């Protein structure tokens, strides 16, 4: 059931830490789970040419991105014996220190949960059409590129 439903990934602005706590709480009734793995992407105050990043403004080709997220989920469920997986990514402005990506995988055992979580993060960074404008403290900007 869980893997077939198309899920809404994007949310406006930063991901509140309370959402992570709530997601964990929501899984306490699923007692076949023995391990969760969580990845949190946080906006870093990079210093570039003596200027400091104060926020990233995220945009996306949303229709394609939702489709690619769905394909990544399908692949992950076929590769890993996970119980469930949740992904949230920010759109719009996220300030330094705030969260922009939340990946949450659950399995009976730790290795699978950790490997699946890592798989999601790498696939998202490589394949999803999301773009980030790094805004500096003086309001100039440059475009972020994933390494």
């Amino acid at each position: 059931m869980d893997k077939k439903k198309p899920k809404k990934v994007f949310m406006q602005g930063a991901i509140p830490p309370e959402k992570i706590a709530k997601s964990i709480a929501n899984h306490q009734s699923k007692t076949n789970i023995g391990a969760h793995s969580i990845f949190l992407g946080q906006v870093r105050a990079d210093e570039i040419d003596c200027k400091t990043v104060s926020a990233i403004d995220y945009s996306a080709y949303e229709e394609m991105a939702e489709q690619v997220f769905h394909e990544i989920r399908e692949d992950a469920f076929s590769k890993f014996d996970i119980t469930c997986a949740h992904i949230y990514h920010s759109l719009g402005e996220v300030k330094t220190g705030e969260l922009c990506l939340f990946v949450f995988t659950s399995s009976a055992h730790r290795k699978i949960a950790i490997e699946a979580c890592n798989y999601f993060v790498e696939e998202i960074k490589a394949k999803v059409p999301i773009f980030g404008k790094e805004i500096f403290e003086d309001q100039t900007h440059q475009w972020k590129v994933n390494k």
Partner: protein
Amino acid sequence: MKINIKYFGMIAETAGKNEEILEVDEGIFARELKARQIKTYQIADPESVQLAVNQNLNTEVELKEGDEVAFLPPFAGG
């Protein structure tokens, strides 16, 4: 025939628009449209630009009336 074009991120900024409808000749390939628009808007670092035709990454496809072609700069999610 008409093609719906979308620009994202740095490319939208350079082009000064998020989308446009272009009238093109029948039989044009996605890669030809890519070269044409890169020249028109002087888009920097053309090697890094990917095209999605109807949401699939592919430049070796012949375009059809009403296709949606997205010009995508490098991805920066996460």
